[in-house]
């Protein structure tokens, strides 16, 4: 009997291709939309998490000024100097290294190419604090730092824009580029780091010894930022408090006067980014839920529109001797077949969409089994419910009433 029902169900699907297609389409769109949305949402989350990881866990950024920016009126707080760096390094417990930073905007020139970028002067400690491997070459030698030699480590964006001739990946090593007229030897190439958490291309940089930058580019001994690496065994707020105390003393800030510098903990950035990501996931999930509802309404419409036709059909089947259950089973099989078909096509379509969109959004490609299963189940359930319940009502009618149904 079940076999017969399957024959009838497949015949019915084949005969009403348009109706079957539209029903399936509703499910396809619902499933594909939900999976695409959620997958891209999760991919974005993952990308942000990767950026958080690339920041390094325990880094304190010490900058002059109050909070973000330089604050309102009043005199500009002084930058730091080499003594501040030494003081922190010598007097604060629980830090791994302190890297000073001074930066300057430059035009980099190599043969016919030029590129506007920023030079970041620091010490080799910079690479101890921030995990940023080199793809080729080496970091600064102590004597190069001490002497302020014109050597540089080039970020990937700069490399791509200056060394346009191709050749082996390490071809730029040993070449000389000009930065605002200063000839500089390329000794290292940085790996790709991508977009920063706040936008901006982290790879668009050239790293040089800080002394070189101070002497030949900025023309002063100011240090704009200090990067402090915190030992894993120590608590970063404690270290932060100690540094604050030390700097207040050195900068002669007494009593309840406000700090004229700020210390930014990357853990705070992580927390902010994580909160943003959570919000993003929430938004994406609601959009996905809405598309599922829209898809569901589409399915419902098609099912209800065909009720008139189907009610008469049920009347005919009942009159010629079908038992109500046989008719219902047939309709259920039809609904299941169409819903599952739509679900499978929807999943496939979603993968294609993610494959196309993920690179455009610069997020990794992902397959999220959970959402595929959930979307499939919900869409299939909607299809079955709206396929089944009108049929159940019709099968409950007197055959004669069903035949006369308008």
């Amino acid at each position, binding site marked *: 009997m079940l076999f017969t029902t399957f024959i009838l169900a497949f015949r019915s699907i084949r005969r009403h291709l348009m109706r079957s297609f539209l029903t399936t389409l509703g499910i396809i769109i619902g499933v594909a939309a939900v999976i695409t949305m959620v997958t891209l949402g999760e991919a974005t989350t993952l990308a942000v998490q990767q950026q958080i990881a690339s920041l390094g866990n325990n880094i304190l950024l010490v900058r002059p000024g109050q909070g973000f920016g330089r604050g309102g009126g009043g005199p500009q707080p002084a930058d730091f100097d080499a003594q501040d760096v030494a003081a922190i390094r010598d007097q604060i417990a629980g830090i791994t290294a302190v890297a000073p930073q001074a930066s300057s905007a430059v035009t980099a020139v190599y043969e016919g190419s030029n590129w506007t970028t920023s030079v970041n002067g620091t010490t080799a400690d910079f690479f101890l604090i921030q995990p940023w491997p080199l793809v080729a070459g080496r970091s600064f030698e102590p004597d190069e730092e001490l002497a302020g030699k014109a050597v540089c480590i080039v970020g990937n964006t700069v490399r791509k824009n200056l060394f346009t001739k191709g050749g082996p990946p390490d071809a730029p090593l040993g070449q000389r580029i000009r930065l605002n007229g200063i000839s500089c030897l390329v000794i290292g190439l940085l790996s790709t780091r991508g977009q920063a958490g706040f936008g901006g291309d982290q790879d668009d940089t050239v790293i040089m010894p800080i002394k070189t930058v101070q002497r030949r580019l900025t023309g002063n001994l100011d240090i704009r930022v200090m990067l402090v690496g915190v030992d894993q065994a120590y608590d970063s707020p404690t270290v932060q408090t100690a540094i604050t105390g030390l700097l207040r003393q050195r900068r002669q800030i007494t009593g309840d006067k406000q700090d004229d510098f700020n210390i930014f903990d990357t853990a705070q950035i992580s927390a902010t980014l994580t909160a943003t990501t959570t919000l993003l996931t929430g938004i994406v999930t609601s959009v996905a839920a809405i598309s599922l509802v829209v898809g569901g309404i589409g399915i419902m419409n098609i099912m209800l529109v065909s009720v008139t036709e189907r009610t008469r059909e049920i009347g*005919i089947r009942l009159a*010629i*001797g079908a038992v109500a259950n046989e008719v219902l089973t047939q309709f259920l099989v039809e609904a299941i077949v169409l819903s599952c078909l739509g679900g499978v096509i929807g999943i496939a379509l979603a993968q294609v969409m993610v494959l196309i969109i993920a690179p455009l959004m610069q997020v990794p490609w992902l397959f999220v089994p959970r959402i595929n299963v959930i979307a499939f189940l919900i869409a299939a359930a909607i299809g079955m419910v709206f396929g089944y319940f009108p049929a159940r009502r019709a099968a409950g009618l007197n055959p004669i009433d069903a035949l006369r149904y308008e």
Partner: protein
Amino acid sequence: MAPLIQLSQVTKTFGTGDAQFQALRGVDLEIASGDFVAIMGPSGSGKSTMMNILGCLDVPSSGQYLFKGRNVGTLDRDQRALLRRRYLGFVFQGYNLLARTSALENVELPLIYRGDGREVRQTLSLAALSKVGLADWAGHTPAELSGGQQQRVAIARALVTNPELLLADEPTGNLDSERSVEIMQLLTELNQTSGITVLMVTHEPDMARFAGRIIHFKDGLVDHVDSNQPVPA
């Protein structure tokens, strides 16, 4: 031999309270196997209700309906469906074929529910279509057939299970007189050559005269019965 159909004091009431309406008010009727009976009567006389009860589509409110000695009133929906499947064939005024479905597949439908295999279905359906003169139209869908042809497909579907009773509800209601006569001749032939009992509701005296007996309904009761010299097939 017991009559095929035996009704005693059958009533049918619709609605409740003030809206209550008694469509049948105690009908006694016997139809023997092999009869060709026409039921006539004005609108609202209860003839359609009668037909639904006789076709086991509906049950009496009171009284007794025996079909082949079985009390239909005590059967549930599914049991009545099985009874229809086994013994009854229906022809409706509006043909009621499945759309977008070939004549052959329409005729096959009752056999599918009966559980016949593919080859048996094909053979019996083609035979039934031949009987109504549509063997060459087996692959056509209802939309490709004329009204008369559609009704003949419906008749083929009704007789493919070789039923004992063929119920026809205004079978010629949608057809012109020439097509109507053809349908009536077909029913008469089935009645006379295959021995199928035919029960037909009609309001056209011209069609009723094909039947051996004409039962006139009025106000939910049998008003009078005419015996007829049936028109030879």
